[in-house]
């Protein structure tokens, strides 16, 4: 295939990738978009296979078969509640693949037309070093994020003295090694960059707490894109640059939306340490002497049956308890009783952007019933019952009232202005951010203590009687 044709094919492939993202502007066009994405990817692979230097098809097909098989099995088996871990794991693979490709280019530059072994163009060396560093950071960072989301590593932020100094020093060392690589082109320095970047990837993720995971998952998404773009510069391939930039921009925008959802700056999240001991004991002492109204499933069923409208506020607890299906059954039961049921989604509910929407979709909740914070927040004051299930910090009035609270300024769902707040929770403990929720002690709040799924089942049974 002449080089011009393959370059044009890559261009078509790039456009397909843009169309794939464009399709996601609505649920009706999303599937077409996905088809564009798959088509674009297939075209890119086939075009590359027809390049003159590529001839050992046996190995390549074997590799694609192994990888494709593993990917297919994982993707088909995965529970939707485990989606954030899966995405983190997938990001790590992109990072590691980027490292391997950069290393392959370093050891065999002729294949990529970027010079000869020991005499690689300086521009290519810089691009290669950047690509490999971002890839390596993405790899270990995503592995740690995966561990935190999967519960293999503690979700608590790990902070130690001089952490920022150490990170800054390692960053400086990394720059020094990149310069050294350009000067010496030594393989030892190249692998030094790889391992140093692995270390930095771990160090920048460990101080970040579980509540900030949506930001981290988006941020690593962004990194995996920048890594791809870096490799694109090394290989002088516009397709990789375009797609890398798209993915990088996408992850960056999602990170921004998540940060805004928590009213925190990106740097505040990155510097970490949120959700540890910091959350004061003062608030806990102030509220603990007030009485808490605790209700049963029967009470909740009675209140909701006699309501005219109910807004359900799901959170990560619902995902953990796998309660989405039972919740939808409960909502169906209420609708049969003539109650208007809607769902309110906070931007940072769950452990990744849009997590709650996917879980509710899985449980066949109609798309029109699920509303974003800005769309529904004003309606709480005209609503009889707010049913909070597995959410906590995103409903905490301290975000509006208490300037000393770590979550002060974060936009919250105004559940407290509803007639009655039903709060399904395992215990009266604090949320992921480690902050007490004074909402528990409000006069119009009734706590429903127990497992989210069991509670919904109880309510359904009570309503049937």
């Amino acid at each position, binding site marked *: 295939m002449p080089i011009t044709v393959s370059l044009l094919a890559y261009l078509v492939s790039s456009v397909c990738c843009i169309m794939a993202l464009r399709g*996601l502007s609505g649920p009706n066009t999303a599937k077409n978009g996905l088809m564009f994405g798959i088509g674009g990817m297939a075209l890119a692979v086939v075009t590359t296979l027809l390049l003159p230097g*590529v001839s050992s098809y046996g190995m390549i097909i074997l590799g694609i078969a192994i990888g494709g098989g593993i990917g297919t099995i994982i993707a088909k088996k995965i529970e939707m509640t485990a989606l954030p871990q899966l995405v983190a794991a997938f990001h790590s693979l992109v990072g590691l693949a980027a490292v391997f490709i950069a290393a392959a280019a370093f050891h065999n530059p002729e294949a990529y037309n970027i010079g000869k072994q020991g005499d690689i163009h300086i521009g290519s060396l810089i691009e290669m070093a950047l690509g490999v560093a971002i890839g390596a950071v993405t790899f270990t960072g995503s592995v740690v994020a995966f561990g935190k989301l999967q519960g293999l590593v503690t979700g608590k932020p790990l902070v130690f003295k001089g952490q920022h100094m150490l990170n800054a020093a390692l960053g400086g060392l990394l720059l020094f090694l990149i310069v050294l690589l350009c000067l010496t082109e030594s393989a030892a320095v190249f692998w030094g960059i790889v391992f140093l970047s692995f270390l930095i990837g771990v160090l920048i993720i460990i101080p970040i707490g579980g509540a900030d995971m949506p930001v981290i998952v988006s941020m690593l998404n962004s990194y995996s894109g920048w890594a791809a773009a870096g490799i694109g510069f090394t290989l002088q391939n516009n397709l990789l640059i375009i797609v890398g930039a798209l993915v990088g921009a996408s992850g960056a925008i999602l990170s921004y939306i998540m940060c805004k959802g928590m009213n925190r700056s990106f740097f505040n999240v990155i510097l970490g340490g949120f959700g540890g001991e910091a959350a004061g004991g003062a608030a806990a002492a102030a509220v603990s002497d007030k009485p808490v109204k605790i209700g049963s499933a029967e009470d909740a069923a009675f209140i909701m049956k006699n309501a005219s409208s109910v807004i359900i506020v799901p959170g990560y607890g619902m995902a953990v308890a796998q309660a989405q299906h039972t919740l939808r059954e409960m909502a169906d039961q209420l609708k049969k009783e003539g109650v208007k049921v809607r769902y309110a989604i906070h931007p940072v509910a769950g452990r990744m952007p849009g997590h709650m929407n996917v879980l509710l979709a899985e449980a066949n909740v109609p798309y029109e019933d699920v509303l974003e914070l800005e769309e529904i927040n004003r309606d709480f004051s005209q609503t009889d019952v707010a049913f909070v299930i597995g959410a906590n910090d995103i409903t905490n009035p301290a975000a509006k009232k208490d300037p000393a609270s770590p979550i002060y300024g974060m936009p919250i769902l105004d559940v407290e202005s509803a007639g009655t707040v039903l709060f399904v929770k395992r215990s009266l403990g604090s949320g992921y951010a480690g902050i007490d929720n004074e909402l528990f002690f409000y006069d119009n709040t009734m706590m429903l203590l127990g497992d989210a799924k069991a509670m919904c089942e109880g309510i359904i049974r009570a309503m049937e009687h």
Partner: protein
Amino acid sequence: MDAHTLAEDAAAVATGASQLSLQAQELALNISQFTTPETAGMPFFVVGLTVFVLACFVGYYVVWRVTPALHSPLMAVTNAISSVIIVGALIAAGPEGWNFSKLLGFLAVVLASVNIFGGFIVTHRMLQMFSKKKKQGA
């Protein structure tokens, strides 16, 4: 004008044309030499940077139009398409024979394939859920 001069003229035009085509070939050769990576190291960087910056803008505007309800599928699909780096892996794994570089390329092909298949399939599963509920809602 008789047939003889006509034939002469035609022959002259033909030689002119063949000379022109020779020149064109030479020019094409020059251009191809000019754009070989040997001399294009820095120029490609500029071209690549242009493409990169423009693509960032495209990404920015396209992603802001994505509805928040589909942010999870967005992450999954961007994850899948970022595995387009398989292109680099294929080039590394492409040559005959075995060397370190090819081994790395092979491993990268495997990793990227996990991502491509996994990412697209999981996105498809999610979108399936959204459209399924669409039907029920209607």
